[in-house]
């Protein structure tokens, strides 16, 4: 039973990883690649670690596996945010089919400050 | 005896201080030392006549057979007496000659050191001790020639003398060591007993060449003679002492000393005689070319040295006897002449013989001394020079090639006569002087030396019996290594040698009277300026310098990639060379045990490596480097090294952080090199990588027992109380490594800190900046 659960979790995890891999290659722009890769891979690695926790079944191992999962889950979005932010600073282009860009021109690239949309409430948020 | 030798050095050490205290009388004071030594050495004269010469041994470097051994036989005594006597006179002379000179104290110091070295040289029995003093004489000669060191000419001449005699020194050292190994001892007196051991040894020829080379450089034989005239840059006392009376005779001493061991072979006699005769004629000829008093004297000295060398080459008892007498005569008259020339120079500031004249009035004592010495040098009876020359004729006439040698001797004698006129007569008694300043009369100390030396030459000439038994005979016996009975006489009765002397004298007088004309002819014939050995020396020096520049410019080019390339190519040559000679069981069949993920990882790492190399952007290179690092860590993990994997992961990330923190301050990667350069570097790099692959394959194919691991596996927990064996090794079994390692880290941190924070203030010249 334990082994089966662990095996299934392992396969699910690997599958998500694989999706992340496909995503990073296939998606048309950086932001969507990140959307796929970071998230799917986080989930994937979470499942694999879960599989490990189940597999060994010892409290010490499981607790450490959980701690690692939590750690990955906490750090992955921060990392994604940092990459996305830096991408915007160096003006990595959005996909040509993107429908809206509220962030456009709101970075002061010299001071690395980001203006808030709130100040310009009167303007149309943009797009269609 | 050691005291006698060392006392000179001790005195040299204190000379500048003493001189500073007593500047006026220091010359007289210092002269007491050689005078005392003279007396001391005279005391040996009685003993050496008996069979066994006194020997003194002091332990030094006994394990290499080098002890401070001295012995006093006839040859040594002759030299020691000359050194001490002329030393005393020259030092007195210098006291006045250099009076008021800022560096006079140092001058005395050098002179005393030289005297001591020379004494050591002639007294040493141990070959290496002899060599040491030999080198010391070269060295003190360097300082003395360069005494007037503000002039480039003096510095140049000093260097020249140093290098030429230094070259001889090398030969001497090699020769003496070889002789030492042939004989099994370094004691020269021991060599004498088994001289035949070497004459039939394979190394005989090289040894003779080396020893002769040493002697020839020191005694200014052709083709090494050129340094001596240039050494006339030195003050007159130096020229007197070193370059006529003593140091240049060290080569003669060496040949004489080793004559019983090396001599008496065709090889020896041909070599030494030929060079001696050639030098004799050349020196005599060149003496007529020059107008500078000291240079003229220098060339006649060369000629005289050639004569002595030639006589030693002939090696018959009469030749040896002639050599000894002539050596004594030459020391006396040439010493006197140099001092006279110095006195003239001192008084007038001029040494050009064509501009000097009529000085008798100002310096009568000097003039008479000069005249007397000149007569001796011209071989006019009843001077000792005459006695010597007669013996020389006699020795030559017994030689196989007597016609050639006598002819040469005759030419030399003619030149000597002419020179005697130019140097000893003309400046005082003839012509008008053309000097800027009014000459001032020389004092007692300037007159004492020349007068005494000239007088001695005359006295001994008149009564040669004064020296024949206690000085000349023992010396000749020592050179020949057999007792020689010496009968010296001023008058040998009518002999055709006398005719030669007369002829030489007459012709010499004629040449003297037509000196200007002869000089012009000789100068036009003298080719040595353009391609003589002096030119050779210059060329050699220039060539050395050019070679040095070229090699240094090529090797030390400043291009780091060249340095690295050299290292890599050397490594390839050595490693590849050593691998070529062996059969290499590579065991490539083992490839099949690879697992899929391992293979993927391997390919990935290699691909990332290629990406690192080919990256056009810094950050791409760094990211790829990160992939390589993580990949390596995964290898560690896959093959049972979790600690390593962890550390590698952590270090890789921190390195990335560091790189990133630094890199955005650096410019983007530039491609500086051309394709051909890249290929030039890529080929050796790939070969080197290939060699490493072969090494890994070969070594892993070997079987080996793990010698250390079982012990650690056994003792890690019970004795070191740790279950992670790697960690136990790190903190316990091999904790000292870790100690060193954290030290490295700490130092690196200080380094980084100082690189980032330490900026020197102020605009002083950078110490390292060329």
């Amino acid at each position, binding site marked *: 039973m334990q082994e089966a659960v662990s095996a299934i979790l392992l396969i699910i995890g690997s599958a998500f990883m694989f999706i992340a891999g496909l995503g990073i290659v296939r998606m048309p722009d950086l932001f969507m690649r990140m959307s796929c890769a970071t998230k799917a891979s986080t989930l994937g690695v979470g499942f694999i670690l879960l599989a490990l926790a189940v597999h060994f079944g010892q409290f010490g191992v499981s607790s450490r596996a959980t701690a690692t999962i939590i*750690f990955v889950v*906490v*750090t992955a979005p*921060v990392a994604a*945010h*940092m990459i996305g*932010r830096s991408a915007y600073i160096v003006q990595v282009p959005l996909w040509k089919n993107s429908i809206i860009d509220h962030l456009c021109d709101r970075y002061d690239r010299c001071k*690395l400050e980001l203006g808030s949309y709130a100040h310009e409430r009167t303007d149309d948020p943009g797009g269609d | 005896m050691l005291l006698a030798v060392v006392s000179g050095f001790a005195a040299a050490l204190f000379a500048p201080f003493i001189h500073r205290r007593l500047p006026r009388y220091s010359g007289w004071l210092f002269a007491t030392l050689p005078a005392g030594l003279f007396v001391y050495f005279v005391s040996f004269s009685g003993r050496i006549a008996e069979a066994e010469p006194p020997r003194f041994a002091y332990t030094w470097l006994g394990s290499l057979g080098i002890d401070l051994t001295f012995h006093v036989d006839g040859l040594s005594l002759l030299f020691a007496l000359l050194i001490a006597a002329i030393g005393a006179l020259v030092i007195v002379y210098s006291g006045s000659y250099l009076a008021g000179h800022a560096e006079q104290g140092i001058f005395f110091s050098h002179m005393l050191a030289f005297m001591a070295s020379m004494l050591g040289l002639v007294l040493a029995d141990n070959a290496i001790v002899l060599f040491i003093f030999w080198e010391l004489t070269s060295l003190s000669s360097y300082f003395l020639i360069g005494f007037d060191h503000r002039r480039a000419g003096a510095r140049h001449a000093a260097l020249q003398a140093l290098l030429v005699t230094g070259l001889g020194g090398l030969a001497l050292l090699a020769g003496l060591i070889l002789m030492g190994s042939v004989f099994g001892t370094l004691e020269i007196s021991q060599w004498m007993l088994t001289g035949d051991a070497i004459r039939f040894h394979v190394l005989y020829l090289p040894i003779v060449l080396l020893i002769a080379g040493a002697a020839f450089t020191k005694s200014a034989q052709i083709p090494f003679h050129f340094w001596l005239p240039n050494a006339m840059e030195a003050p007159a006392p130096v020229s007197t002492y070193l370059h006529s009376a003593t140091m240049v005779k060290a080569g003669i001493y060496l040949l004489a000393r080793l004559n019983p061991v090396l001599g008496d072979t065709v090889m020896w006699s041909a070599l030494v005689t030929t060079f001696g005769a050639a030098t004799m004629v050349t020196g005599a000829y060149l003496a007529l070319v020059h107008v500078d008093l000291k240079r003229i004297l220098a060339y006649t000295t060369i000629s005289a040295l050639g004569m002595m060398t030639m006589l030693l080459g002939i090696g018959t008892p009469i030749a040896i006897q002639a050599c000894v007498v002539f050596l004594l005569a030459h020391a006396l008259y040439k010493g006197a002449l140099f001092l006279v020339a110095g006195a003239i120079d001192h008084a007038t500031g001029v040494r050009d013989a064509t501009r000097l004249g009529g000085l008798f009035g100002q310096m009568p004592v000097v003039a008479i001394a000069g005249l007397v010495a000149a007569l001796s040098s011209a071989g006019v009876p009843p001077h000792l020079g005459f006695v010597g020359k007669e013996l020389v004729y006699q020795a030559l006439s017994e030689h196989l090639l007597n016609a050639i040698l006598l002819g040469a001797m005759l030419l030399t004698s003619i030149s000597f006569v002419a020179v005697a006129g130019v140097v000893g007569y003309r400046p005082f008694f003839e012509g008008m002087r053309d000097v800027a300043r009014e000459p001032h009369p020389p004092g007692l100390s300037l007159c004492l030396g020349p007068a005494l030396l000239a007088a001695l030459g005359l006295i001994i000439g008149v009564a040669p019996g004064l020296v024949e038994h206690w000085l000349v005979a023992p010396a000749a016996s020592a050179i020949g290594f057999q007792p020689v009975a010496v009968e010296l006489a001023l008058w040998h009765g009518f002999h055709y040698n006398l005719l030669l002397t007369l002829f030489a004298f007459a012709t010499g007088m004629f040449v003297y009277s037509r000196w200007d004309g002869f000089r012009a002819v000789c100068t036009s014939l003298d080719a040595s300026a353009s391609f003589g050995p002096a030119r050779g020396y210059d060329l050699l020096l220039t060539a050395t310098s050019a070679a040095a520049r070229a090699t240094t410019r090529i090797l030390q080019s400043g291009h780091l990639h060249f340095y690295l390339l050299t290292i890599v190519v050397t490594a390839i040559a050595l490693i590849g060379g050593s691998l070529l000679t062996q059969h290499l069981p590579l065991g490539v069949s083992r490839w099949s045990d690879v697992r899929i993920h391992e293979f993927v990882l391997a390919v990935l790492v290699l691909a990332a490596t290629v990406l690192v190399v080919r990256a056009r952007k810094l950050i791409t290179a760094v990211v790829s480097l990160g992939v390589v690092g993580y990949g390596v860590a995964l290898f560690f993990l896959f093959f049972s090294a*979790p*600690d390593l994997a*962890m*550390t590698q992961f*952590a*270090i890789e*990330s*921190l390195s990335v*952080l*560091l790189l990133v*923190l*630094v890199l955005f*301050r650096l410019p983007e990667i530039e491609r500086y090199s051309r394709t051909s350069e890249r290929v030039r570097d890529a080929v050796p790099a790939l070969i080197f990588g290939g060699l490493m692959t072969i090494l890994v394959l070969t070594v892993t194919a070997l079987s080996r027992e793990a010698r250390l691991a079982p012990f650690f596996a056994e003792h890690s927990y019970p004795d*070191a*109380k*740790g*279950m*992670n064996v790697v*960690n*136990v090794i*790190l*903190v*316990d079994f091999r*904790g*000292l490594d*870790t*100690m060193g390692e*954290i*030290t490295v*880290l*700490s130092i*690196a*941190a200080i380094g*980084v*800190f100082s690189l*980032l*924070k330490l900026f020197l203030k102020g605009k002083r010249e950078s110490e390292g900046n060329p």
Partner: protein
Amino acid sequence: MSSLILSAATRYLLPLLLLLSVYLLLRGHNLPGGGFVGGLVGAAAFALHCIAHGVETSKRVLRVQPRTLIAVGLLTAALSGSLSLFAGRPFMTGIWNSDGLTILGKIGTPAVFDMGVYLVVLGVVLTIIYSLSEE
């Protein structure tokens, strides 16, 4: 260059990561880990904090000069090794207490040595990173 998200995240990650680093240090004798990895992880934690909050804040948070950590670490290591010299044994001979605390394993000079290593590694990496960031 401050990101609110990063700085908030690292503020809470720091103690956790330090905990991990001490854990790695103390367990290193029996499981993978030890002074090096522990120190590196600790340093990584502070490095993150430094990127997120800037050097000054990060230095203030650390309280101790990293240079002092280096010196103290080296001293700890050297003294732990020298202790056996006073007992007349060779340098770095392990000296252990008889029973030891349960969790730390037995306390002995090699463990203290490892702590020295930890401090040195921490101090070194932080010295480097702080002085680089200050430039």
